[in-house]
């Protein structure tokens, strides 16, 4: 236990010392908050007769999505780049030669994810409440459960990418590509109501779509979405199993 806490603490400090990942996880979602907030505001809206934003104010819907975006930035970008560069540089070799286990390494990534996502989410929400008058979450407890499941799931995806991608350059390229694809097609960008069918189908294959909806449902009072929960948990379990199977230390 002491080992896991030490490892997580050091990893958290290293995360904070890395400016690029800090920008991605914290600054980018806040930029989106203000850009989209200035454009769409937070009152219910009709776009050419189609009801968008689930019949609610745009920022009510976007705020939970941007919490998902923080998770996506960590899972798709920072963890894969971190783990692949650790492998490339021989850090993983050095770690394995001590008696650290694969699970300790994985768990430390999860703890860092939790801490960073929590802090970034709180900052995001503190900004969103007064500026755009976002409604308070309908069920705090369900929101926290959804938040935890989603963080675990995206962390697992990050570790999976870190396990499978050969180099940190590959992780950067593929991570950015997936991040922006998910941003555009998951509902965290254009509302799903105005998407064409193909866009929706692709969006449905993306974990951020389901995480967004799971978080939105608990926040906006649509109740607990078992189907989305199942999909998000499935992504998490599947990614963990494959990552554990294929993880290489050098």
């Amino acid at each position, binding site marked *: 236990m*002491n*080992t896991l806490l*030490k*490892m997580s603490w*050091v990893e958290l*400090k*290293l995360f904070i*010392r*890395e400016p690029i990942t800090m920008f991605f996880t914290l600054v980018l979602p806040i930029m989106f908050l203000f850009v989209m907030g200035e454009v769409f505001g937070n009152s219910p809206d009709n776009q050419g007769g189609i009801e968008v934003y689930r019949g609610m104010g745009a920022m009510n819907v976007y705020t939970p999505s941007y919490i998902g975006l923080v998770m996506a930035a960590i899972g798709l970008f920072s963890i894969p780049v971190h783990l692949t560069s*650790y492998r490339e*540089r*021989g*850090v993983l*070799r*050095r770690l*394995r*030669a*001590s*008696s*650290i*286990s694969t699970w300790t390494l994985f768990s430390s990534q999860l703890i860092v994810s939790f801490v960073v996502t929590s802090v970034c989410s709180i900052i995001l929400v503190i900004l969103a409440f007064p500026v755009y008058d976002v409604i308070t979450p309908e069920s705090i407890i369900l929101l926290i459960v959804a938040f935890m499941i989603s963080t675990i799931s995206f962390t697992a995806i990050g570790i999976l990418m870190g396990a499978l991608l050969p180099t940190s350059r590959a992780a950067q390229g593929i991570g950015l590509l997936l991040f922006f694809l998910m941003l555009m097609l998951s509902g965290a960008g254009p509302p799903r109501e105005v998407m064409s069918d193909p866009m929706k189908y692709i969006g449905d294959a993306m974990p951020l779509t389901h995480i967004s909806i799971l978080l939105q449902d608990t926040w906006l009072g649509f109740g607990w979405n078992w189907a989305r929960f199942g999909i998000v948990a499935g992504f998490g379990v599947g990614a963990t199993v494959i990552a554990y199977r294929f993880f290489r230390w*050098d």
Partner: protein
Amino acid sequence: MNNVIEVEHLKKTYGSFTAVDDVSFHVEEGEVFGLLGPNGAGKTTSIECIQALRHSFTGDVSVLGLDPRKDARELRKYIGSQLQESALPNRMKVWEALDLFASFAPNALDWELLLKQWGLAEKRNSSFGGLSGGQQQRLFIALALVNDPKIVFLDEMTQGLDPAARRVAWDLVRAVRDKGKTVVMVTHFMDEAENLCDRLAIVNKGRIVATDSPQGLINSYATQIKVLFSTDEPDLSYLEQIPSVNSVNRYGSHVEILGTGPILPLVAAALVENGITPSDLRVDQPTLEDVFLILTRDVEPAEINQ
């Protein structure tokens, strides 16, 4: 003496390339054992198999009674490793690295003490990325010792150290041995092997070509003794008549005689008998380097020089 490491018929292949080919040796408790050989000879691969860092090999390996393939995590509690081609995160601080690796071990040493012993006390708060090559190397050796291991593996420990730091490192290896630990080291430096190792194995092309103490290897393989002196006397043919002399070579006034056995007194007697009394008559004892060159002769010269 107890054997803490026993290796029988170790073989490791990568596709069609055989990196380690039927290597057998043992290491006794409390000794400094060295693997000496040219680059690419399979030294590192061999000790990586022993340290449970590589798994798909054949042969029997037992370390402290454990099988590295089955008991890897248990084994790592009792061994310390300084690896080639490893690194720490650039932004990790020296004290953080020691503190972290100490937390992995149940019987960790006081890492503040290691920091001082290895001359890193004033680099305590420096980032790994800002250290010089020698400082990074010393940190890695400190990390290899922090779990108070029974066996320490040092892979090219003095790579990147300046001559003064190398001497300090040698003293520290002796200090580690004096505490009753076993040291297994890989090196391609002759002086390091000769000065530090109680026994060593010379490795070439994936095979062990000889194992003995440094002096034992010299006695068995570098049997040619060199006697040197200078003279302007034109005729020295009588020296070739001495039974144990193999050859007499002249370079200007310098004379070099190669032979086996007690050739110095025989040569001296013959010279005196013929009225020559050179004041610089001396004998060059063979060194480990001579043994190494004899045993790895078929290697490309460029590789030996590295």
